[in-house]
């Protein structure tokens, strides 16, 4: 099939996603990822800690672990959809970061993303595809934050690449 041979224009892909997101907004709520990831974190922590987790107010007041939280399934769907797309296009293969510095950057980057999502209560997806289109005040704060952060991040990234 042609769809799995050529690269799709991202503008077309994002237009389709935007229209679907409007339907999602009407049915359950706008697209977000951070919330689902937090719930997964809680569920994983529950496996390791059992009832001890409930003693932490965060997992008792803000995110009570619940496998029926719909946002979890958006993330799992993305994993599944991407796997299907990659398999059908013969683009699936295991890739490992080669250098130690890459592993280190990814580790620090991942940690910062996790901390940032929880401090802000939003991720980049809800910023661009939820809050700002709803004209929520938080959207503008979040966009200013992410643009400033990406600028600083790019600066560090460039330094590391050059060094």
């Amino acid at each position, binding site marked *: 099939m042609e769809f799995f041979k050529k690269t799709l224009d*991202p503008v077309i892909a994002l237009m389709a996603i935007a229209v679907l997101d409007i339907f999602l907004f009407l049915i359950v709520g706008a697209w977000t990822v951070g919330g689902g990831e937090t719930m997964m974190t809680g569920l994983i922590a529950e496996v390791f800690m059992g009832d001890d987790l409930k003693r932490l107010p965060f997992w008792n007041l803000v995110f009570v672990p619940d496998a029926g939280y719909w946002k979890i399934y958006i993330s799992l769907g993305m*994993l599944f959809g991407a796997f299907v*797309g990659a398999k059908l296009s013969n683009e699936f293969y295991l*890739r*490992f970061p080669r250098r130690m510095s890459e592993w280190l950057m990814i580790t620090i980057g991942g940690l910062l993303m996790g901390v940032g*999502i929880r401090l802000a*209560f939003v991720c*980049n997806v809800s910023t661009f595809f939820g*809050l700002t289109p709803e*004209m929520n005040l938080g959207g503008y704060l979040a966009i200013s934050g992410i643009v400033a952060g990406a600028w600083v991040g790019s600066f560090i990234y460039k330094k590391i690449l050059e060094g």
Partner: protein
Amino acid sequence: MSVVGECIVAFIFGSVVGLLVQRSRFCNTAALRDAMLFSTYRNTKALLVAMMILTFGFTLFITFGEGKTMHFDVGLNTFAGLFIFGVGMVLAGACTVSTWVKAGEGNIGAVWALIFTFVGMFLFSLVWSANYWPPAPVSMTGEPNLEALQLGYANAATLQEKFGIPAIVFGLMQVAVLYAIYRAILRKEAIQAGHHRDVAKSHEAAAAE
């Protein structure tokens, strides 16, 4: 809608998004990083177009009281959190979407980033549990609470309520701003293309001599 129904809708939505993002190689991180580092706007343009469509759609339905808007207060923590996130996503080379999509393509680096996003979230939950600040339920009352650095809650629906002007009017204003940014990018690309043509011509001329 039942819980199972919501989860099924979410999974179908996610699957289509995963497929489209994989096929188009769209990346949110690249939308910001490439524009800043390399002055290339392939992903930035897509992001802007999606935001224009979403703003129009969301505010249109909000005008009629439809749609499920996100309800939570914002404050300086929103800015600070996304700042930290922005640095992190550029270093990790992937955001919340691309970590899942790249993981689906077999990228172990993305899986690693995902694992550490979970670790980061858990570490933050420990800190939050110790001091409950800043996005604590007591400080999130919907009203500005400057002591807790909280600015309250406002969106297109509250604007409509307060000013009696339909939310879509505000939405169209935002679409116009996004379109202006989009046009500026197109102009910049046209200048870049012109520059590339000039360079190619001078190379040709040099080769001919």
